[in-house]
Protein backbone atom coordinates (compact mmCIF):
# COMPACT_ATOMS: atom_id res chain seq x y z
CA UNK A 1 0.00 0.00 0.00
CA UNK A 2 2.77 2.47 0.91
CA UNK A 3 4.49 1.80 -2.43
CA UNK A 4 1.35 2.80 -4.29
CA UNK A 5 0.77 5.90 -2.14
CA UNK A 6 4.41 6.93 -2.59
CA UNK A 7 4.11 6.43 -6.35
CA UNK A 8 1.01 8.66 -6.47
CA UNK A 9 2.71 11.30 -4.29
CA UNK A 10 5.80 11.38 -6.50
CA UNK A 11 3.73 11.50 -9.68
CA UNK A 12 1.53 14.34 -8.38
CA UNK A 13 4.49 16.30 -7.04
CA UNK A 14 6.18 16.11 -10.44
CA UNK A 15 3.01 17.13 -12.24
CA UNK A 16 2.38 20.06 -9.85
CA UNK A 17 5.92 21.36 -10.02
CA UNK A 18 5.75 21.26 -13.81
CA UNK A 19 3.24 24.14 -13.44
CA UNK A 20 5.62 26.45 -11.54
CA UNK A 21 3.61 29.68 -11.55
CA UNK A 22 0.43 28.03 -10.33
CA UNK A 23 2.16 26.86 -7.14
CA UNK A 24 3.49 30.33 -6.25
CA UNK A 25 0.25 32.16 -7.09
CA UNK A 26 -1.82 29.67 -5.07
CA UNK A 27 0.22 30.37 -1.94
CA UNK A 28 0.09 34.15 -2.47
CA UNK A 29 -3.68 34.22 -2.91
CA UNK A 30 -4.09 32.49 0.45
CA UNK A 31 -2.20 35.30 2.19
CA UNK A 32 -3.92 38.15 0.34
CA UNK A 33 -7.28 36.58 1.23
CA UNK A 34 -6.29 36.66 4.87
CA UNK A 35 -5.18 40.29 4.62
CA UNK A 36 -8.70 41.20 3.45
CA UNK A 37 -10.21 39.69 6.61
CA UNK A 38 -7.56 41.41 8.73
CA UNK A 39 -8.58 44.84 7.50
CA UNK A 40 -12.29 44.02 7.73
CA UNK A 41 -11.61 43.17 11.36
CA UNK A 42 -9.85 46.49 11.93
CA UNK A 43 -12.80 48.33 10.43
CA UNK A 44 -15.76 46.43 11.92
CA UNK A 45 -14.24 44.01 14.40
CA UNK A 46 -15.94 45.33 17.50
CA UNK A 47 -19.39 45.15 15.87
CA UNK A 48 -19.11 41.41 15.57
CA UNK A 49 -18.04 40.82 19.13
CA UNK A 50 -21.47 39.99 20.62
CA UNK A 51 -21.65 36.90 18.41
CA UNK A 52 -18.03 36.01 18.96
CA UNK A 53 -17.87 36.48 22.72
CA UNK A 54 -18.16 32.79 23.51
CA UNK A 55 -15.22 31.89 21.31
CA UNK A 56 -12.62 34.08 22.98
CA UNK A 57 -11.70 35.52 19.59
CA UNK A 58 -12.14 38.65 17.48
CA UNK A 59 -13.51 38.50 13.93
CA UNK A 60 -10.10 38.14 12.31
CA UNK A 61 -9.03 35.39 14.69
CA UNK A 62 -12.33 33.61 14.08
CA UNK A 63 -12.31 33.77 10.29
CA UNK A 64 -8.58 33.09 10.10
CA UNK A 65 -8.87 29.82 12.00
CA UNK A 66 -12.06 28.74 10.24
CA UNK A 67 -10.71 29.54 6.77
CA UNK A 68 -7.43 27.72 7.40
CA UNK A 69 -9.35 24.75 8.75
CA UNK A 70 -11.92 24.81 5.95
CA UNK A 71 -9.10 24.99 3.43
CA UNK A 72 -7.57 21.89 4.94
CA UNK A 73 -10.60 19.69 5.34
CA UNK A 74 -12.14 21.13 2.18
CA UNK A 75 -9.28 19.33 0.43
CA UNK A 76 -11.03 16.10 1.28
CA UNK A 77 -14.36 17.33 0.00
CA UNK A 78 -13.15 18.93 -3.18
CA UNK A 79 -10.07 17.10 -4.32
CA UNK A 80 -11.53 13.65 -4.97
CA UNK A 81 -13.83 14.77 -7.72
CA UNK A 82 -11.23 17.20 -9.11
CA UNK A 83 -8.49 14.56 -9.23
CA UNK A 84 -10.78 11.96 -10.66
CA UNK A 85 -11.90 14.39 -13.35
CA UNK A 86 -8.27 15.21 -14.19
CA UNK A 87 -7.48 11.52 -14.58
CA UNK A 88 -10.63 11.04 -16.65
CA UNK A 89 -9.80 13.85 -19.06
CA UNK A 90 -6.16 12.75 -19.41
CA UNK A 91 -7.31 9.18 -20.08
CA UNK A 92 -5.20 7.76 -17.27
CA UNK A 93 -8.15 6.78 -15.08
CA UNK A 94 -8.90 3.63 -17.06
CA UNK A 95 -5.22 2.63 -17.14
CA UNK A 96 -4.78 3.23 -13.41
CA UNK A 97 -7.95 1.42 -12.40
CA UNK A 98 -7.03 -1.51 -14.64
CA UNK A 99 -4.05 -2.23 -12.41
CA UNK A 100 -4.32 -4.63 -9.46
CA UNK A 101 -4.60 -1.69 -7.00
CA UNK A 102 -7.64 -2.12 -4.76
CA UNK A 103 -10.32 0.56 -4.58
CA UNK A 104 -9.54 1.61 -0.96
CA UNK A 105 -5.82 2.00 -1.76
CA UNK A 106 -6.68 3.92 -4.93
CA UNK A 107 -8.90 6.28 -2.94
CA UNK A 108 -6.22 6.81 -0.29
CA UNK A 109 -3.59 7.47 -2.94
CA UNK A 110 -5.65 9.65 -5.25
CA UNK A 111 -5.66 12.67 -2.92
CA UNK A 112 -2.57 11.94 -0.82
CA UNK A 113 -0.74 14.78 -2.56
CA UNK A 114 -3.64 17.18 -2.00
CA UNK A 115 -3.65 16.42 1.73
CA UNK A 116 0.12 16.78 1.93
CA UNK A 117 0.00 20.12 0.15
CA UNK A 118 -2.95 21.25 2.28
CA UNK A 119 -0.88 20.43 5.38
CA UNK A 120 1.91 22.63 4.01
CA UNK A 121 -0.59 25.42 3.34
CA UNK A 122 -1.94 25.03 6.86
CA UNK A 123 1.57 25.43 8.23
CA UNK A 124 2.00 28.59 6.11
CA UNK A 125 -1.31 29.86 7.52
CA UNK A 126 -0.18 29.25 11.10
CA UNK A 127 3.24 30.85 10.62
CA UNK A 128 1.71 33.85 8.83
CA UNK A 129 -1.03 34.10 11.47
CA UNK A 130 1.45 34.22 14.33
CA UNK A 131 4.30 36.21 12.79
CA UNK A 132 2.51 38.47 10.30
CA UNK A 133 -0.92 39.01 11.84
CA UNK A 134 0.09 38.57 15.48
CA UNK A 135 -2.37 35.82 16.45
CA UNK A 136 -2.10 34.38 19.95
CA UNK A 137 -2.41 30.59 19.74
CA UNK A 138 -0.80 29.89 23.09
CA UNK A 139 -4.01 28.55 24.67
CA UNK A 140 -4.66 25.95 21.99
CA UNK A 141 -5.47 22.43 23.23
CA UNK A 142 -3.53 20.18 20.87
CA UNK A 143 -5.20 16.81 21.60
CA UNK A 144 -8.63 18.37 21.05
CA UNK A 145 -7.44 20.03 17.84
CA UNK A 146 -6.01 16.73 16.60
CA UNK A 147 -9.33 14.98 17.29
CA UNK A 148 -11.26 17.71 15.45
CA UNK A 149 -8.94 17.53 12.43
CA UNK A 150 -8.99 13.75 12.25
CA UNK A 151 -12.75 13.31 12.55
CA UNK A 152 -13.45 16.22 10.20
CA UNK A 153 -10.97 14.97 7.62
CA UNK A 154 -12.65 11.55 7.56
CA UNK A 155 -16.13 13.09 7.25
CA UNK A 156 -15.10 15.47 4.50
CA UNK A 157 -13.06 12.92 2.58
CA UNK A 158 -16.17 10.72 2.66
CA UNK A 159 -18.27 13.57 1.27
CA UNK A 160 -15.60 14.04 -1.38
CA UNK A 161 -15.72 10.37 -2.34
CA UNK A 162 -19.52 10.53 -2.57
CA UNK A 163 -19.18 13.57 -4.77
CA UNK A 164 -16.65 11.81 -7.03
CA UNK A 165 -19.23 9.10 -7.77
CA UNK A 166 -21.09 11.68 -9.86
CA UNK A 167 -17.88 12.34 -11.82
CA UNK A 168 -17.45 8.62 -12.45
CA UNK A 169 -20.98 8.24 -13.73
CA UNK A 170 -21.92 11.59 -15.28
CA UNK A 171 -18.44 13.08 -16.01
CA UNK A 172 -19.60 16.72 -15.66
CA UNK A 173 -22.35 18.20 -13.54
CA UNK A 174 -21.80 17.31 -9.92
CA UNK A 175 -24.66 18.23 -7.59
CA UNK A 176 -22.78 17.01 -4.50
CA UNK A 177 -19.82 19.32 -5.23
CA UNK A 178 -22.24 22.16 -5.96
CA UNK A 179 -23.93 21.70 -2.58
CA UNK A 180 -20.63 21.41 -0.75
CA UNK A 181 -19.10 24.44 -2.43
CA UNK A 182 -22.11 26.69 -2.02
CA UNK A 183 -23.53 25.76 1.36
CA UNK A 184 -20.73 24.48 3.59
CA UNK A 185 -19.08 27.91 3.78
CA UNK A 186 -22.35 29.80 4.06
CA UNK A 187 -24.14 27.60 6.59
CA UNK A 188 -21.21 26.00 8.40
CA UNK A 189 -19.94 29.05 10.27
CA UNK A 190 -16.72 29.47 8.32
CA UNK A 191 -16.95 33.23 7.68
CA UNK A 192 -19.21 34.15 10.58
CA UNK A 193 -20.71 32.31 13.55
CA UNK A 194 -23.83 30.28 12.80
CA UNK A 195 -25.65 32.36 15.45
CA UNK A 196 -25.77 35.23 12.93
CA UNK A 197 -28.07 33.20 10.67
CA UNK A 198 -31.88 33.22 10.99
CA UNK A 199 -33.11 30.35 13.14
CA UNK A 200 -34.60 28.38 10.22
CA UNK A 201 -31.22 28.43 8.46
CA UNK A 202 -29.49 27.38 11.66
CA UNK A 203 -31.56 24.20 11.47
CA UNK A 204 -29.83 23.35 8.17
CA UNK A 205 -26.48 24.23 9.69
CA UNK A 206 -27.07 21.54 12.29
CA UNK A 207 -27.14 18.91 9.56
CA UNK A 208 -23.62 19.76 8.35
CA UNK A 209 -20.43 18.33 9.89
CA UNK A 210 -18.56 21.60 9.21
CA UNK A 211 -20.75 23.41 11.76
CA UNK A 212 -19.61 21.15 14.61
CA UNK A 213 -16.05 21.06 13.35
CA UNK A 214 -15.66 24.84 13.17
CA UNK A 215 -17.28 25.36 16.55
CA UNK A 216 -15.04 22.77 18.20
CA UNK A 217 -11.98 24.18 16.45
CA UNK A 218 -12.60 27.74 17.65
CA UNK A 219 -13.12 26.64 21.25
CA UNK A 220 -10.06 24.37 21.22
CA UNK A 221 -7.84 26.95 19.54
CA UNK A 222 -8.69 30.15 21.36
CA UNK A 223 -10.21 29.05 24.69
CA UNK A 224 -8.13 25.91 25.16
CA UNK A 225 -11.25 23.72 25.44
CA UNK A 226 -10.22 20.08 25.91
CA UNK A 227 -11.58 16.81 24.56
CA UNK A 228 -13.97 16.44 27.52
CA UNK A 229 -15.55 19.84 27.04
CA UNK A 230 -15.89 19.31 23.30
CA UNK A 231 -17.34 15.81 23.62
CA UNK A 232 -20.78 16.69 22.13
CA UNK A 233 -19.17 18.14 19.00
CA UNK A 234 -16.60 15.34 18.74
CA UNK A 235 -19.25 12.63 19.14
CA UNK A 236 -21.36 14.26 16.45
CA UNK A 237 -18.34 14.36 14.12
CA UNK A 238 -17.60 10.72 14.97
CA UNK A 239 -21.19 9.81 14.07
CA UNK A 240 -20.86 11.62 10.73
CA UNK A 241 -17.57 9.79 10.07
CA UNK A 242 -18.99 6.39 11.01
CA UNK A 243 -21.96 6.82 8.71
CA UNK A 244 -20.29 8.59 5.81
CA UNK A 245 -17.07 6.55 5.48
CA UNK A 246 -18.62 3.14 4.74
CA UNK A 247 -21.44 4.76 2.77
CA UNK A 248 -18.99 6.59 0.50
CA UNK A 249 -16.78 3.52 0.00
CA UNK A 250 -19.82 1.42 -0.95
CA UNK A 251 -21.15 4.14 -3.26
CA UNK A 252 -17.79 4.51 -5.00
CA UNK A 253 -17.48 0.75 -5.52
CA UNK A 254 -21.01 0.66 -6.94
CA UNK A 255 -20.31 3.62 -9.26
CA UNK A 256 -17.08 2.00 -10.43
CA UNK A 257 -18.86 -1.25 -11.08
CA UNK A 258 -21.54 0.59 -13.08
CA UNK A 259 -18.86 2.44 -15.12
CA UNK A 260 -17.12 -0.87 -15.84
CA UNK A 261 -20.44 -2.38 -16.86
CA UNK A 262 -21.29 0.56 -19.14
CA UNK A 263 -17.75 0.71 -20.51
CA UNK A 264 -17.62 4.41 -19.67
CA UNK A 265 -14.46 4.46 -17.54
CA UNK A 266 -12.39 5.74 -20.43
CA UNK A 267 -14.96 8.35 -21.47
CA UNK A 268 -14.84 11.99 -20.46
Amino acid at each position, binding site marked *: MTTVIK*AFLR*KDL*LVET*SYRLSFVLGSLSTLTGMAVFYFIDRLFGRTFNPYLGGYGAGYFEYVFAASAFFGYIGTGAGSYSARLRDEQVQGTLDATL*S*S*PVSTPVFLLSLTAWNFLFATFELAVYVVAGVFVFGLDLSRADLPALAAVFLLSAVSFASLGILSSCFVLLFKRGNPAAWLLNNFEGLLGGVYFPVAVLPSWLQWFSGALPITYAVRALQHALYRGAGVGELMPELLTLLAFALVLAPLSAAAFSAALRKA*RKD*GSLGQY
Partner: protein
Amino acid sequence: MPIEAADIRKEYRAPAPPHAPWRRGRPVRALDGVSLRLGAGEITGLAGPNGAGKSTLLRVLGGRLVPDSGRIFLNGRGTGDAELRKAAVCAEAGARSFYPRLSVIENLCFFGALYGLPRSGTRARAETLRDRLGMRKADLELRFDSLSEGSAQKAALIRALMLPSALLLLDEPARHLDLGSAAALAGLIKEKALGEGASVLYASHDPAGLAAICGRVLALKEGRISAEVPAGGEPGAIAGIAGACAGTL
Protein backbone atom coordinates in the same frame (compact mmCIF):
# COMPACT_ATOMS: atom_id res chain seq x y z
CA MET B 1 -1.80 -19.50 -17.25
CA PRO B 2 -4.57 -20.85 -19.52
CA ILE B 3 -7.66 -18.69 -19.83
CA GLU B 4 -11.03 -19.80 -21.06
CA ALA B 5 -14.08 -17.71 -21.89
CA ALA B 6 -17.52 -19.24 -22.26
CA ASP B 7 -20.47 -17.62 -24.01
CA ILE B 8 -19.45 -14.00 -23.36
CA ARG B 9 -22.12 -11.48 -24.30
CA LYS B 10 -21.95 -7.73 -24.17
CA GLU B 11 -24.38 -5.14 -25.36
CA TYR B 12 -23.65 -1.41 -25.27
CA ARG B 13 -26.07 1.39 -25.42
CA ALA B 14 -24.85 3.92 -27.95
CA PRO B 15 -24.70 7.51 -26.66
CA ALA B 16 -27.83 9.58 -27.19
CA PRO B 17 -27.73 11.58 -30.43
CA PRO B 18 -26.48 15.17 -29.95
CA HIS B 19 -29.73 16.65 -31.30
CA ALA B 20 -31.83 14.66 -28.79
CA PRO B 21 -29.82 14.15 -25.59
CA TRP B 22 -32.95 13.08 -23.66
CA ARG B 23 -33.34 9.97 -25.82
CA ARG B 24 -31.79 6.65 -24.87
CA GLY B 25 -29.15 5.49 -27.33
CA ARG B 26 -29.67 2.41 -29.51
CA PRO B 27 -28.47 -0.90 -28.10
CA VAL B 28 -25.38 -2.25 -29.91
CA ARG B 29 -24.45 -5.91 -29.55
CA ALA B 30 -20.65 -6.01 -29.35
CA LEU B 31 -20.13 -9.63 -28.28
CA ASP B 32 -22.65 -12.33 -29.06
CA GLY B 33 -21.65 -15.53 -27.31
CA VAL B 34 -17.87 -15.61 -27.65
CA SER B 35 -16.15 -18.73 -26.37
CA LEU B 36 -12.40 -19.27 -26.62
CA ARG B 37 -9.43 -20.86 -24.92
CA LEU B 38 -5.95 -19.36 -24.74
CA GLY B 39 -3.26 -21.79 -23.68
CA ALA B 40 -0.29 -20.85 -21.47
CA GLY B 41 2.64 -19.80 -23.65
CA GLU B 42 0.41 -19.58 -26.70
CA ILE B 43 0.08 -16.56 -29.00
CA THR B 44 -3.39 -16.34 -30.51
CA GLY B 45 -4.35 -13.80 -33.12
CA LEU B 46 -7.66 -11.97 -33.25
CA ALA B 47 -8.78 -10.59 -36.59
CA GLY B 48 -11.93 -9.00 -37.85
CA PRO B 49 -13.25 -5.91 -39.58
CA ASN B 50 -13.84 -2.63 -37.73
CA GLY B 51 -16.67 -2.97 -35.24
CA ALA B 52 -16.38 -6.76 -35.04
CA GLY B 53 -15.87 -6.56 -31.25
CA LYS B 54 -12.10 -7.11 -30.96
CA SER B 55 -11.39 -4.26 -28.55
CA THR B 56 -14.48 -5.10 -26.49
CA LEU B 57 -13.30 -8.70 -26.16
CA LEU B 58 -9.83 -7.56 -25.07
CA ARG B 59 -11.37 -5.24 -22.48
CA VAL B 60 -13.58 -8.00 -21.12
CA LEU B 61 -10.67 -10.44 -20.88
CA GLY B 62 -8.59 -7.75 -19.16
CA GLY B 63 -11.26 -7.17 -16.50
CA ARG B 64 -11.85 -3.61 -17.68
CA LEU B 65 -15.34 -4.22 -18.93
CA VAL B 66 -17.92 -6.36 -17.17
CA PRO B 67 -19.79 -8.62 -19.61
CA ASP B 68 -23.57 -8.96 -19.50
CA SER B 69 -23.28 -12.73 -19.27
CA GLY B 70 -20.84 -15.57 -19.72
CA ARG B 71 -18.00 -16.87 -17.61
CA ILE B 72 -14.22 -16.60 -17.64
CA PHE B 73 -11.92 -19.22 -16.15
CA LEU B 74 -8.29 -18.69 -15.20
CA ASN B 75 -6.36 -21.90 -14.77
CA GLY B 76 -9.67 -23.75 -14.73
CA ARG B 77 -11.15 -21.64 -11.94
CA GLY B 78 -14.08 -19.27 -12.47
CA THR B 79 -12.96 -15.70 -12.01
CA GLY B 80 -14.25 -12.15 -11.74
CA ASP B 81 -13.04 -8.89 -13.19
CA ALA B 82 -10.83 -8.05 -10.18
CA GLU B 83 -8.83 -11.27 -10.59
CA LEU B 84 -8.58 -10.64 -14.32
CA ARG B 85 -7.09 -7.19 -13.70
CA LYS B 86 -4.44 -8.84 -11.54
CA ALA B 87 -3.59 -11.42 -14.19
CA ALA B 88 -3.87 -9.39 -17.38
CA VAL B 89 -2.00 -6.49 -18.89
CA CYS B 90 -3.43 -4.68 -21.85
CA ALA B 91 -1.20 -2.79 -24.29
CA GLU B 92 -3.28 0.08 -25.48
CA ALA B 93 -2.52 2.81 -27.95
CA GLY B 94 -0.04 5.35 -26.59
CA ALA B 95 -0.92 8.86 -25.67
CA ARG B 96 -4.16 8.81 -23.70
CA SER B 97 -3.14 6.34 -21.05
CA PHE B 98 -0.01 8.17 -19.88
CA TYR B 99 0.52 11.32 -17.83
CA PRO B 100 1.45 13.92 -20.45
CA ARG B 101 3.55 16.14 -18.17
CA LEU B 102 5.67 13.31 -16.78
CA SER B 103 8.70 11.86 -18.51
CA VAL B 104 8.39 8.43 -20.08
CA ILE B 105 10.51 6.83 -17.38
CA GLU B 106 8.51 8.48 -14.57
CA ASN B 107 5.31 7.20 -16.19
CA LEU B 108 6.79 3.71 -16.39
CA CYS B 109 7.96 3.81 -12.77
CA PHE B 110 4.50 4.96 -11.67
CA PHE B 111 2.68 2.15 -13.44
CA GLY B 112 5.37 -0.31 -12.36
CA ALA B 113 4.72 0.65 -8.73
CA LEU B 114 1.00 -0.07 -9.17
CA TYR B 115 2.05 -3.62 -10.05
CA GLY B 116 4.54 -3.84 -7.19
CA LEU B 117 7.72 -3.30 -9.25
CA PRO B 118 10.56 -1.38 -7.56
CA ARG B 119 11.90 1.71 -9.37
CA SER B 120 15.31 0.16 -9.94
CA GLY B 121 13.76 -2.95 -11.49
CA THR B 122 11.47 -0.87 -13.69
CA ARG B 123 14.35 1.30 -14.90
CA ALA B 124 16.50 -1.72 -15.76
CA ARG B 125 13.68 -3.53 -17.56
CA ALA B 126 12.59 -0.37 -19.39
CA GLU B 127 16.15 0.26 -20.56
CA THR B 128 16.42 -3.26 -22.00
CA LEU B 129 13.07 -3.05 -23.75
CA ARG B 130 13.83 0.46 -25.06
CA ASP B 131 17.00 -0.85 -26.62
CA ARG B 132 15.28 -3.86 -28.16
CA LEU B 133 12.45 -1.76 -29.61
CA GLY B 134 14.87 0.75 -31.11
CA MET B 135 13.69 3.70 -29.05
CA ARG B 136 16.26 6.46 -28.54
CA LYS B 137 17.84 6.50 -25.08
CA ALA B 138 17.00 10.19 -24.62
CA ASP B 139 13.30 9.52 -25.27
CA LEU B 140 12.94 7.85 -21.87
CA GLU B 141 13.70 11.17 -20.17
CA LEU B 142 11.44 13.26 -22.42
CA ARG B 143 8.06 14.51 -21.30
CA PHE B 144 5.41 12.19 -22.66
CA ASP B 145 3.53 14.94 -24.50
CA SER B 146 6.62 15.71 -26.57
CA LEU B 147 6.95 12.21 -28.05
CA SER B 148 6.23 11.26 -31.63
CA GLU B 149 3.39 8.78 -32.23
CA GLY B 150 5.89 6.00 -32.81
CA SER B 151 7.76 6.67 -29.59
CA ALA B 152 4.49 6.94 -27.64
CA GLN B 153 3.49 3.55 -29.00
CA LYS B 154 6.87 2.11 -27.99
CA ALA B 155 6.40 3.51 -24.49
CA ALA B 156 3.02 1.77 -24.30
CA LEU B 157 4.64 -1.48 -25.42
CA ILE B 158 7.48 -1.15 -22.91
CA ARG B 159 4.88 -0.70 -20.16
CA ALA B 160 2.90 -3.74 -21.25
CA LEU B 161 5.95 -5.97 -21.67
CA MET B 162 7.69 -4.99 -18.43
CA LEU B 163 4.69 -5.63 -16.18
CA PRO B 164 4.21 -9.09 -14.72
CA SER B 165 1.26 -10.75 -16.43
CA ALA B 166 -0.17 -14.17 -17.05
CA LEU B 167 -2.29 -12.78 -19.87
CA LEU B 168 -1.01 -10.20 -22.36
CA LEU B 169 -3.64 -8.46 -24.45
CA LEU B 170 -2.39 -6.52 -27.44
CA ASP B 171 -4.56 -4.21 -29.52
CA GLU B 172 -2.80 -3.28 -32.78
CA PRO B 173 0.59 -3.26 -31.06
CA ALA B 174 2.60 -2.63 -34.23
CA ARG B 175 0.68 0.53 -35.09
CA HIS B 176 3.07 3.44 -35.88
CA LEU B 177 6.13 1.15 -35.68
CA ASP B 178 8.78 0.97 -38.39
CA LEU B 179 9.60 -2.46 -39.84
CA GLY B 180 12.65 -3.04 -37.63
CA SER B 181 10.78 -2.16 -34.45
CA ALA B 182 7.83 -4.33 -35.49
CA ALA B 183 10.18 -7.29 -35.96
CA ALA B 184 11.76 -6.63 -32.55
CA LEU B 185 8.29 -6.48 -31.01
CA ALA B 186 7.42 -9.86 -32.50
CA GLY B 187 10.53 -11.32 -30.86
CA LEU B 188 9.66 -9.79 -27.50
CA ILE B 189 6.11 -11.11 -27.61
CA LYS B 190 7.39 -14.62 -28.38
CA GLU B 191 9.79 -14.38 -25.44
CA LYS B 192 6.94 -13.29 -23.18
CA ALA B 193 4.88 -16.28 -24.25
CA LEU B 194 7.54 -18.94 -24.46
CA GLY B 195 9.87 -17.65 -21.74
CA GLU B 196 7.33 -16.53 -19.14
CA GLY B 197 4.43 -18.77 -20.15
CA ALA B 198 2.04 -15.86 -20.70
CA SER B 199 -1.09 -16.36 -22.79
CA VAL B 200 -1.09 -13.72 -25.52
CA LEU B 201 -4.06 -12.45 -27.50
CA TYR B 202 -2.94 -10.28 -30.42
CA ALA B 203 -5.56 -8.23 -32.23
CA SER B 204 -4.58 -6.74 -35.56
CA HIS B 205 -5.66 -5.90 -39.10
CA ASP B 206 -2.29 -6.96 -40.51
CA PRO B 207 -2.49 -10.51 -41.96
CA ALA B 208 1.29 -10.82 -42.48
CA GLY B 209 2.01 -9.67 -38.94
CA LEU B 210 -0.53 -12.10 -37.50
CA ALA B 211 0.75 -14.96 -39.63
CA ALA B 212 4.33 -14.32 -38.53
CA ILE B 213 3.75 -14.35 -34.82
CA CYS B 214 0.58 -16.30 -33.99
CA GLY B 215 0.00 -20.03 -33.79
CA ARG B 216 -3.59 -19.54 -34.89
CA VAL B 217 -5.93 -16.67 -35.59
CA LEU B 218 -9.54 -16.32 -34.45
CA ALA B 219 -11.85 -14.56 -36.85
CA LEU B 220 -14.33 -12.30 -35.08
CA LYS B 221 -17.35 -11.16 -37.03
CA GLU B 222 -20.35 -9.28 -35.64
CA GLY B 223 -19.42 -10.25 -32.11
CA ARG B 224 -18.95 -13.98 -32.79
CA ILE B 225 -15.95 -16.18 -33.43
CA SER B 226 -16.76 -17.19 -36.99
CA ALA B 227 -13.65 -19.22 -37.83
CA GLU B 228 -10.27 -20.34 -36.60
CA VAL B 229 -7.41 -20.02 -39.08
CA PRO B 230 -4.09 -21.83 -38.66
CA ALA B 231 -1.07 -19.55 -38.83
CA GLY B 232 2.56 -20.02 -37.79
CA GLY B 233 3.97 -20.65 -41.25
CA GLU B 234 1.11 -22.82 -42.55
CA PRO B 235 0.83 -22.58 -46.34
CA GLY B 236 -1.89 -20.16 -47.35
CA ALA B 237 -2.11 -18.77 -43.85
CA ILE B 238 -1.89 -15.15 -44.92
CA ALA B 239 -4.75 -15.53 -47.39
CA GLY B 240 -6.93 -17.12 -44.71
CA ILE B 241 -6.06 -14.45 -42.15
CA ALA B 242 -6.74 -11.73 -44.73
CA GLY B 243 -10.21 -13.19 -45.05
CA ALA B 244 -10.62 -13.05 -41.28
CA CYS B 245 -9.48 -9.42 -41.23
CA ALA B 246 -11.94 -8.55 -43.99
CA GLY B 247 -14.80 -10.38 -42.33
CA THR B 248 -15.38 -12.81 -45.17
CA LEU B 249 -14.86 -15.98 -43.12
